């Protein structure tokens, strides 16, 4: 189970990011819990200045733009087998 957090206030790009993550993980049957972080102090605590940003399992994965589907998938693939480079 991945804990995914989308950081950003209620802007259109943040919503798009959230929907894309939901879509990609649903299609690929990746189990996640999705959280939306809108509190500015919490966002800054991740060292983020440009939103939307994405945190996967408490690790910053993306900042400043809407990620594409390939990028989104890579977060989950990469952490499933950290030692094996071929699986990604």
């Amino acid at each position, binding site marked *: 189970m991945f804990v995914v957090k989308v950081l950003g206030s209620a*802007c259109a790009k943040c919503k798009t990011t959230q929907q894309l993550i939901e879509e990609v993980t649903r299609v690929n049957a990746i189990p996640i819990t999705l959280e939306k972080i809108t509190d500015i102090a919490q966002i800054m605590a991740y060292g983020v200045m*440009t939103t939307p940003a994405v945190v996967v399992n408490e690790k*910053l994965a993306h900042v400043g733009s809407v990620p594409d589907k390939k990028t989104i998938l890579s977060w989950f693939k990469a952490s499933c087998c950290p030692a094996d480079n071929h699986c990604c």
Partner: protein
Amino acid sequence: MFTWLADNLVFSWLQWPRNDPFAHSVHFFVMDTLKIFFMLCGVIYLMGWFRSFITAEQVRNYIQGKSKWVGHLLAIILGALTPFCSCSSVPLFIGFVEAGIPLGVTFSFLIASPMINEIAVVMLLGIVGWKVTVLYVLSGFIVALVGGVLMEKFKAERWVEAYVWQIRMAKTPPLNLAHTLPARHDYALNEVKTIVQRVGLWIIIGVAVGATFHGYFPQEWAESLANQDNFWVVPSAVLLGVPIYANAVGVIPLAEALLLKGVSMGTTLAFMMSIAAISLPELLILRKVIQWPALVLFVIILSVSITLVGWLFNFIL
């Protein structure tokens, strides 16, 4: 090349007469759309490459600890090169403040970023020519510098919301999204795709409006309007621009129409800057970090400096 393509399409292939105003408009439309899309893709791709090397978090690190003037200059240049979504204004503001960057420098960055950007530059180059482009970038630079310096002179720190000073950022190393060449290429290509998708329709509409003017605008109108400039035109244009908010793409065809109508360069530039730099949504977002007096001051300073730049260009051109 684009003229040749448009020539072939309109005059040779469709065989429209060269002196027909409709054919002239279509010719202009075909030529300009091709040219702008071509330039836009190229420029966004290059900027995408550049941006895969530098993030806002890195911009902060560059500016941090620099002397005031170097700070202002860097903030404006980096602000022009790195666009951000207006919903990032608040975290950017706090991040800069937290890094000990003077408030004036932060404002210079916030003013420069929406005003000077590659889409505006490409549209200006494609539609109104390089002279106006250079003047626009130059005026954006001046306004961002003056605005930032003045905000500092008025000690705007007084009005920063108390909680802002308390926020601490994590000292995580900045995340660089694309390290390898293919990743940078992907990133740049993705930028081209999203930006062209977002602004494409507006460019076509904009150019179509411009093209219509090109074919049909009577010369006598232009001459009669050109003589109506006076002292109050610039401030009225700025005031008119304050409540209007549009991105560069929407503004530039309007600017071309104004220029074609014979409105002077300074007035047109002032109107464009006022629309791009001062926006109500942005102010409401910034209200989360600074109080109303500072925001009012911000609008006044920007309006006055844009007016002065407008007058200056009307005077020297």
